[in-house]
């Protein structure tokens, strides 16, 4: 007989994946269009932008931070990259510049958090309005169109039959996983999230690591902005509203603790997939979008409840 402990461990480790499989099973029973290769590709493409942002968010949250500015930063870096590209600069250079600016503005958030000790929630809440304002000011509130073809490739191109955004998402997830699991920096992020004081007394340069987390989030956001700009073949200053919440949802549904120190980016991918499958399934079933939001919120709550229950078990 398998002891209850066995099932508990199994659930603790693979519970998320199990939940995803159950969801996929249910959806494929409800709609025969769901489990088709083209729809699966479709779901993956739909989640790619959120998943890329959520990679950065995962790093920030494991370090016991939060980044609310990503939606606005996505808009600003998107219009900046597009604006530079249409102004005649080499489009690769324009994309590089947008990524660089994302990194720098993220680092700006991080510097404030690390050196002024203002709470990340407040710093990035300010960033949320500042970056949105910068996007609107830069474009005068109008979308930017007429982009060079490289953008279209980023958003809609195919490589080996699979859309480019999926490749970018996969590569970025692997990069994030590598940083978190195989580098000294990643270890420092977990240590700071788990116990900042112990990390500091161990000689870990806490401010520098915090700065990195937010800079990385900025980079991830700018990358997502390039993909989104490509998808729409235009850059909107109003893009990315509420994206921070989708990213945070993917992270916490994926089992990363909001209190820091625990979690990982594969969990975040599963979290993004769960949310993506629910969205997709509800579309296929013709659920009105108003109700979709209610269901999505319910799923996030359920995930957090399960996380609390597991945490309680771990602590006792």
């Amino acid at each position: 007989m398998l002891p209850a402990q066995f099932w508990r461990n199994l659930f603790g480790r693979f519970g998320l994946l199990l939940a995803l499989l159950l969801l996929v099973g249910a959806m494929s029973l409800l709609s025969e269009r769901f489990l088709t290769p083209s729809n699966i590709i479709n779901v993956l493409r739909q989640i790619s932008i959120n998943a890329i942002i959520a990679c950065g968010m995962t790093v920030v949250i494991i370090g016991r931070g939060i980044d609310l500015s990503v939606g606005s930063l996505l808009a600003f870096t998107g219009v900046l990259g597009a604006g530079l590209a249409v102004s005649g600069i080499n489009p690769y250079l324009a994309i590089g510049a947008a990524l660089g600016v994302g990194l720098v503005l993220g680092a700006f958030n991080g510097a404030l958090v690390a050196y002024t000790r203002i709470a990340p929630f407040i710093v990035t809440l300010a960033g949320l309005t500042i970056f949105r304002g910068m996007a609107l000011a830069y474009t005068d509130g109008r979308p930017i169109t007429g982009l060079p073809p490289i953008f279209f490739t980023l958003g809609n191109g195919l490589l080996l039959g699979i859309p480019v955004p999926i490749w970018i998402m996969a590569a970025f997830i692997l990069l994030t996983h590598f940083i978190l699991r195989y580098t000294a920096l990643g270890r420092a992020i977990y240590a700071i999230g788990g116990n900042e004081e112990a990390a500091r007394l161990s000689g870990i340069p806490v401010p520098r690591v915090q700065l990195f987390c937010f800079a990385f989030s900025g980079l991830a956001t700018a990358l997502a902005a390039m993909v989104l700009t490509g998808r729409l073949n235009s850059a909107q200053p109003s893009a990315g509203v509420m994206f921070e919440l989708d990213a945070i949802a993917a992270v916490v549904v994926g089992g990363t603790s909001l209190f820091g120190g625990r979690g990982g980016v594969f969990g975040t991918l599963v979290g993004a997939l769960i949310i993506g499958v629910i969205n997709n399934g509800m579309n296929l079933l013709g659920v009105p979008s108003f109700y979709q939001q209610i269901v999505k919120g319910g799923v996030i709550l359920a995930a957090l409840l399960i996380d609390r229950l597991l945490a309680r078990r771990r602590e006792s």
Partner: protein
Amino acid sequence: MLEMRGVVKRFGSVAALKGVDLALRPGEIHALVGENGAGKSTLMKVLAGVWQPDEGVLTLDGQRLALSGVADAKRRGIVMVYQELTLVPELSVAENLFLGRLRGLVNYRELNERATALLKEVDLTLSPKALVGNLSIGEQQLIEIAGALAQQGRILILDEPTAALSAAESERLFKLIAAFKERGVSVVYISHRLEEIFRLADRVTVLRDGERVATEAISEITPERVVQLMVGRSVRRYQRAARKPGAALADFVLHAKGLAPTRFTLHRGEIIGLAGVVGSGRSRVLSALFGLEGEASWNGHPLRTPRDAIARGMVLVPADRKTQGLVLELCVRENLALATLGRLSRLGVMRAAAERAQASRWISRLSLRPPDPEKTVRELSGGNQQKVVVGKALATEPTVLLMDEPTRGVDVGARAELYQVIDQLAEQGLGLLLSSSDTEELTGLADRIFVFRGGRIAAELSPPFDDEEVVRHVTGAILA
């Protein structure tokens, strides 16, 4: 009155309790002793309803007892006071005492009156309106116990209640326990301090490795025998051999708020003991040297941050392992690597083999139990957690080691092992600063003792040390 029979509790594949029996009589003080990890706290958490036993039976007044949780246990009069306090610092004494039983609009006059009556019973002259956060740890502890009293407890479980108390506060606690006994309350008293147990307890139960090895009337047993039963071998007070310190290793100059400018020289192979009551400036010496407050320099080089200090070869074993020493969610191997991430990585990428090798080296050198590098440190006993903190510090290969209360809350066996490690380090030529409130620890290990009083070195003592003399200097009795 209460009986526990054949209690088994497993965590994962590890059995923390392997079939323990325990019987409590009405109005007895029953001491529960054992090394860290012996299962004392686990057994009491089963009794207090925190955990359900995997096997075994509890009976209360002959009735079988199946506790559904802490609240259920409390309803039956079983109350546990934990090592970590569970008061709300932002609320008043009275509010804390009746927390959870306030309903609707609170009649503060009545609440404060009832609180005053309770405080009187525990001999505390405190305003019921005082904020708990402004009280000393000792006062808070007494309030917790008064709270237990307010719940009409029949069985009171105290888990190392004197660990954070001053001598005077401890005395007050002992009186209170005696008063409980008078009313027929049974007290289970967990402690590492044998003199307290022999003063207070009627009977003593010794646990070792999750099993009960003995229950004896206190009059039928000696402290030496209890220690033997606890560790399964005999332990004597640690006294290292006389040793001659080597050449000067470091000239330290430092000052901080509440600490007068201080300078001294530490030699190779020398252990300087820092004595003094809490607030005497003793701990500030270590935090100033480690770049946490004030200013300090080593042979003229400033020490501004922990990184500076570590880079120069000096590392701190902090006083509180849980909040300052460890990342509880990470495993033993990862914690051991925290202070040496640079050396264990190449171009920023962790070298897994080097990290594993470092972990197994320190696990065996410090006899960590269980010797499992992948175990989460949260699951280790206090003594073994402390060994991980020490291992993490030593992995940096320091030339100067700062230790703040290195054996606080550590059981006798692990303590002796840590003393041996400290002694070996001095033999190898390290310089050590050892700050401790345990006089025996200082006189047993140090080459010199600085006694701090009022923010300055009030006395510098050399061997042979006399424990009583050290205490007289620490308490200021020498002045009287």
